[in-house]
């Protein structure tokens, strides 16, 4: 579950879609299916918690530009 924290919602949702598609196609050894299933349910949980807990964040463009300028120095 910890490794998921680093991922964004978008990546997790995309991976979840991919897993479901893979499983729908079939022809996967059962132990691999189980692994995918486990990963998929964790991703779903993560996505839902993202959507539940998100707070809108507003940043001014100048802040991002300043960050980038600092990073370059």
């Amino acid at each position: 579950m910890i490794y998921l924290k680093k991922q964004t919602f978008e990546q997790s949702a995309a991976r979840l879609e991919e897993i479901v598609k893979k499983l729908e196609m079939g022809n996967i050894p059962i132990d691999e299916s189980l692994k995918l299933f486990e990963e998929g349910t964790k991703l779903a949980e993560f996505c839902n918690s993202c959507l539940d807990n998100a707070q809108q964040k507003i940043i001014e463009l100048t802040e991002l530009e300043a960050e980038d300028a600092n990073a370059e120095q």
Partner: protein
Amino acid sequence: MNSPVITVTQLNSYLKSIIEGDENLRNIYVCGEVSNFTNHYRTGHFYMVLKDAESSIKAVMFRSNAQRLRFMPENGMMIIARGRISIFERDGQYQLYIDDMQPYGAGALSVAYEQLKNRLASEGLFDEKLKKAIPVCPSRVGVITSPTGAAIHDILNVLGRRFPLAEVIFCPVEVQGVNAAQQIVEAIERFNAGRYADVLIVGRGGGSIEDLWTFNEERVARAVFSSDIPIISAVGHETDFTICDFVADLRAPTPSAAAELAVPNRVVLMEHINQLKNSLINILNLEIEKKRTVIKSLTGSKFFSSPIYYIDVKRQTVDSLVEKMSVYMKREVNEKQSILSLLCGKLHALSPLKVLARGYSLTLKNNSALCSIKEVEIGDEVDVMLSDGLLNCSILSKAE
């Protein structure tokens, strides 16, 4: 009357002073059709002839005035020009010096709008094929609008309600007035420089055509077109169409609508995620059930329940093969026997012994058959074969 002789220059200069001294010719409005229009490539002055059905007059508009025009005069266009009459002394040509002009009928802005729209359309800036796809799930939504108007509040409200996951990167700009176009162009360029957003909303709330004019300016349109980040335009109300709207990758009727188009709905997303989760469970259960059925059909087969059965089956096969083999062998022997007796019959029919039985005989000397009397001498002994035995004979005489 004794008039003094004057030069041409003096004459033209005199006429000029008279014309320029006439109040009526100092600030006049002239309505006419533009013809012979030239936009001088080096000086930027406009030269043209204004005419109506019966008459025409030369006209010039110097660059300082010409570049303030929002539309471009064209041949055949009816205009109202404001200016003064004076004389171009070098040619002795009187002409209209235009300070400003308006298209006759339609307003200058709407003519400028149509002209720019047609030009950009012919350049392909509105081409549907060049429009970039709006990302379904952006991480960062860039917003370029006024910090004070209702638009920013509407946009933030909708974004926050629908998809608070997306960070909002806000770049406040003026959306009307002389600085607006430059600020919007720069904002679009700054967003692109650092790729600070996945999608941009550019717009403002409603207003008059003059208020919205910034979004009809060519450089704004070109900046929108050049942006690598997809742009949703949201200018004014549903009925307002700006050039910016045509160039943008997606046009939203209002700023709120732009926010709705920029991000997915959280509620719908959650439903989708849960649907995916359910299909995960269903697929896996189905898979397990399928595998279970396969195992069941395997363990339930006769092979598993009584392996001896398979040996019996094989034994039966061997037995039936042995039986078949003996049947074939018998048939083969019989066939050969009948062929043999047939051949014996034929052989018998051809035997010379048969001929002997009918009273013919065969004469042999030293066991070889004689065919001519020349083969024996008087006194030789020969054997005569009859059907039932041999006669040993001596040759007494020969006759031909």
